[in-house]
């Protein structure tokens, strides 16, 4: 399982802004990986390229043993005409019903399953949205700030759940929370300004499977590496 970006260059249409200048990076193997970088460096753009939602760039994005790529972001909404429970049920394959219940429990949104999307808090909205993506067929799921507005403890619990329930899948997590990324992610792509070469640096995260089993010194070391890379 591998996604490899080779020599990607891209400029937004009708602007002089070059986002990527011969960018190369890769993520190998299933697990929870991260795409990290300051705002405006093109994390979402790169994610959409990998998800085949954005074209018009030069270079190549190659994938091995990854056929279904899904991209989700934190601005997505459910239609307003039914409860989120009904809408989730309508897009969940028959075989995924047990998994739906497990995810709803793990994500802590049982109490709002009969509510309309507009009645949910921002954190609940993001969790509900993530659940419906997790119930689809995918090999790689790109989560663009998908846990924004969720408290830190719940975020950690959700990431551990994902790693436990989907060990054979690949996740690419976009977040600005450096500690969370350092703690839970396996490979961390640090995206840098297009003036810097190479434009990405790869850092190994602590890839924890239990939220509290970590050595602070090692975590600090990883965070320091991320800071230096960016």
């Amino acid at each position, binding site marked *: 399982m591998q996604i490899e970006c080779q020599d990607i260059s891209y400029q937004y249409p009708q602007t002089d802004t070059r986002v990527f200048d011969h960018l190369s990076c890769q993520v190998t193997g299933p697990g929870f990986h991260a795409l990290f970088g300051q705002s405006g460096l093109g994390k979402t753009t790169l994610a959409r390229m990998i*998800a085949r*939602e954005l074209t018009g760039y030069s270079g190549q994005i190659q994938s091995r043993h990854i056929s279904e790529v*899904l*991209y*989700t*972001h934190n*601005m*997505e*909404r*459910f*239609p*307003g*005409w039914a409860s989120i429970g009904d809408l989730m049920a309508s*897009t969940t394959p028959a075989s995924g019903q047990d998994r739906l219940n497990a995810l709803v429990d793990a994500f802590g949104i049982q109490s709002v399953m009969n509510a309309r999307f507009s009645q949910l808090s921002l954190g609940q909205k993001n969790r509900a*949205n993530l659940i*419906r*993506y997790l119930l*689809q067929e995918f090999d790689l799921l790109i989560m663009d700030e998908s846990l924004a507005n969720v408290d830190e403890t719940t975020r950690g619990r959700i990431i551990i759940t994902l790693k436990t329930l989907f060990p054979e899948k690949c996740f690419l997590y976009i977040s600005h929370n450096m500690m969370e990324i350092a703690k839970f992610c396996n490979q961390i792509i640090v995206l840098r300004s297009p003036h810097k070469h190479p434009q990405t640096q790869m850092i190994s995260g602590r890839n924890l499977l239990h939220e509290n089993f970590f050595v602070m010194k090692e975590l600090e070391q990883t965070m320091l590496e991320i800071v230096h890379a960016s």
Partner: protein
Amino acid sequence: MLHRRIQQFVLVYFLGLLSLLLVKYLLNLSDYVIPGPVEIWQTCKAVFSRYVFNVLDTLWIAVLGHIISIVLAFLVGIVGRRNSWIGSLIKAAAYNIQAYPIVAVAPIIFILLGDGLITRLLIAVLICYFPLLLSVIGILSEPVDSIEHFYVATKRMNWRLQVRIRAYENINKLTTVIAGSATMAMVGTIVAEFIAADAGIGYSIRTALYQSDLSKILTALFLIGISTSLYLTGLEWMGNVIQRKCRA
């Protein structure tokens, strides 16, 4: 809602009437040009019941024409919302035809179809259909990315779901546009009757014009205003019910 709308109309109507009488007395115009209040009142009493039937005749054609326009606008709008060549063709055709004043085309319709019910209906439909179509196309062709993304990404999107999402998200705009186009349906019917029909309040206005009887015209205008207010209030009420049901 009805009470307020009719109150507002009556206020505007009587302000207009007062201005007319003011002009009459300031310029010392004869009763032949602008009749006095007594004559207006007497004419109103004499023709009121007949005009009520005439305006109802006009109103039902306007309502029917409006319904046909809405159905047509949605059917064509659903096809025209797409970025395909057929969508572009429909949009271009709608913009071009919209540019033609239907009032100028109306005599052709009368020559071809005579001055019966179908002709009045057709002109009413034509006058309110094209603006309605352009609004519907505009609303239905605007993607709601934040909702549609999931269905597109998971290959669940179809035209019915797309239309449903876009219509639901723009329900306020759609109900406003539909209510707004009701006045155009009424105008269209009156224009048709005014040009060549032999029934309806537009026909009564034309007859009054030939008789140079401003009192009759003022009575007709009053009844047109009241009936339009009633229809608009009904539409707004339906729009509110739909919006409430959508939010429930």
